[in-house]
């Protein structure tokens, strides 16, 4: 590659250009991070006043001042717990197969390519899949179960990818030591490899779930309702979740409902922050443990 410096490129001029370039890059970064601050600031300004005990414990209402978000919080937690219960075992099993058994077979590589592609499929497409498969064909209706199954499919690629990474960090000497003691392959995986990978797997799971808990489009597509005056009490209940309730309030023309939306966003962000904090703590413990 030819580096043309130009005929008049004086050394001082080039150094000035270098500094200028660096300054521009820093400004761009500052603007992007500043936008994040403005976003949080705007939501806080609009929603902080609405955020009180009444808001957290009330059901939706036609009047913005007496509306609350209790049903949506319970709905979100319900759906996410079920999503985790479905995505974790299947995801870990799939990752274990690909990492410990699959090797470099052509089929394993095809599955890998497929997972990488699934991770980039728009979430609303998963919603259409959930609508066609779970809601209609399997006749689950617009239930918590159908919503969680849809989000579990959405979370699966992330769980698989992060579990594989966690399995890869387990040193092979652990496996060899276990084999040397006469353990079978599965005994080695179950008693040695997986326990060592647990913090990494959990970190990945939480990251996948924190993406799922913010998802709106796939749940709207499967027909989760926007007006539910009760909290779900079984996996067959109709339900709504925080993002859908927020979307519902944003879509109304009255300003008072927009403030409710902002307060709802604060609740959602607090939930996300908590989940990410747990993930960071886990990763921290994991890294310290991983070091010999």
């Amino acid at each position, binding site marked *: *590659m030819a580096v043309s410096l130009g005929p008049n490129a004086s050394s001082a001029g080039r150094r000035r250009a270098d500094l200028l370039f660096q300054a521009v890059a820093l400004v761009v970064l500052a603007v992007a991070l500043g936008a994040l601050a403005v976003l949080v600031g705007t939501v806080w300004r609009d929603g902080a006043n609405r955020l009180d005990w009444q808001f957290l414990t009330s059901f939706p209402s036609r009047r913005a001042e007496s509306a609350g978000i209790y049903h949506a919080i319970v709905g979100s937690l319900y759906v996410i717990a079920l999503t985790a219960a479905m995505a974790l075992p299947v995801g870990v099993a799939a990752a274990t197969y690909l990492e410990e058994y699959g090797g470099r077979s052509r089929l394993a590589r095809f599955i890998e390519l497929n997972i990488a592609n699934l991770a980039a499929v*728009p979430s609303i497409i998963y919603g259409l899949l959930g609508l066609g498969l779970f809601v209609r064909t399997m006749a689950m209706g617009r239930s918590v179960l159908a919503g969680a199954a849809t989000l579990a499919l959405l979370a699966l690629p992330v769980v698989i990818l992060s579990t594989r990474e966690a399995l890869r960090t387990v040193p092979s000497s652990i496996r060899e030591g276990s084999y040397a003691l006469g353990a079978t392959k599965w005994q080695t995986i179950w008693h040695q490899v997986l326990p060592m990978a647990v913090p990494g797997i959990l970190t990945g799971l939480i990251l996948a779930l*924190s993406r799922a808990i913010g998802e709106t489009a796939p749940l709207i597509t499967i027909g989760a309702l926007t007006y539910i005056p009760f909290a779900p009490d079984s996996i067959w209940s109709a339900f709504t979740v925080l993002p859908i309730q927020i979307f519902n309030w944003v879509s109304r023309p009255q300003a008072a409902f927009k403030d409710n939306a902002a307060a709802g966003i604060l609740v959602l962000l607090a939930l996300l922050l908590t989940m*990410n904090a747990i993930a960071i703590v886990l990763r921290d413990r994991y890294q310290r443990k991983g070091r010999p």
Partner: protein
Amino acid sequence: MSLRRGERAIEALLFLCALASVGTTAGIIVVLAVETFAFFGEVSIVEFLTGTEWTPLFATKHFGVLPLLLGTTVVSVIALVVAVPTGLLSAIYLSEYAPERVRRVVKPVLEILAGVPTVVYGYFALTFVTPLLQQWLPGLSGFNALSPGIVMGLMILPLVSSLSEDAMRAVPRGLREGAYALGATRMQTALQVVVPAAFSGITAAVILAASRAIGETMIVAIAAGQQPRFTANPFVPIETMTAYIVQVSLGDTPQGTLEYRTIFAVGMLLFLMTFALNLLSSWLRARFREEYN
């Protein structure tokens, strides 16, 4: 003996779970294809792909998807115009200039931008960015393509930045040292050696960002409006493919009707577009990895 059979059974079970991912892809294709074929039994595929009027919910129905396609394109292009230069600049800075301490702070904060739920971005676009833009552009409607486009750019910036940075950091040190030895500054090295060397990796990042922008739903459903117009004007309300699917899903459209099938036909088009972009992106990334490993 039974121990070995148990081992086999477990391996088979794990394999089935791995196959579930292939099943998901197959499920997506089958569900979309079944309803799409039914849709094209009633509407000509030529009208769908070339018509410039989209009014399936009106009394006089037209099924030309071009207005939705153009709406999606306009918003995505605006998002890329915002995200590509800024994402590339921050990638160059983080890869070639930033001290390790700065990188370790800035990268996770940038990642937060990607982790914010899209419904939050929608709120931000509608209640903050649009009013702000209206002060400078008095002709701007309350719903428009510009504001969600800009906000979407902010959302995909971390994707462009972190994937491009990965590509640049994979460029061998020797190339940089060669440029320095010839008297090049860091900027000249970055722009004339590192970026061209990482070009296929950077292109892969941009393509993946485009795919993300095309499939993004809530920002446009909230802030772009629900008026499928065949226009490239970013100041007026439009509708994207994803926003249309949301609009129909919010209503109570019974299964088996033509309106119900339109969302699968639009979904199929969306899936094919993003699928092609994702494949192209992973192909480019694989090629880039081969170049330097």
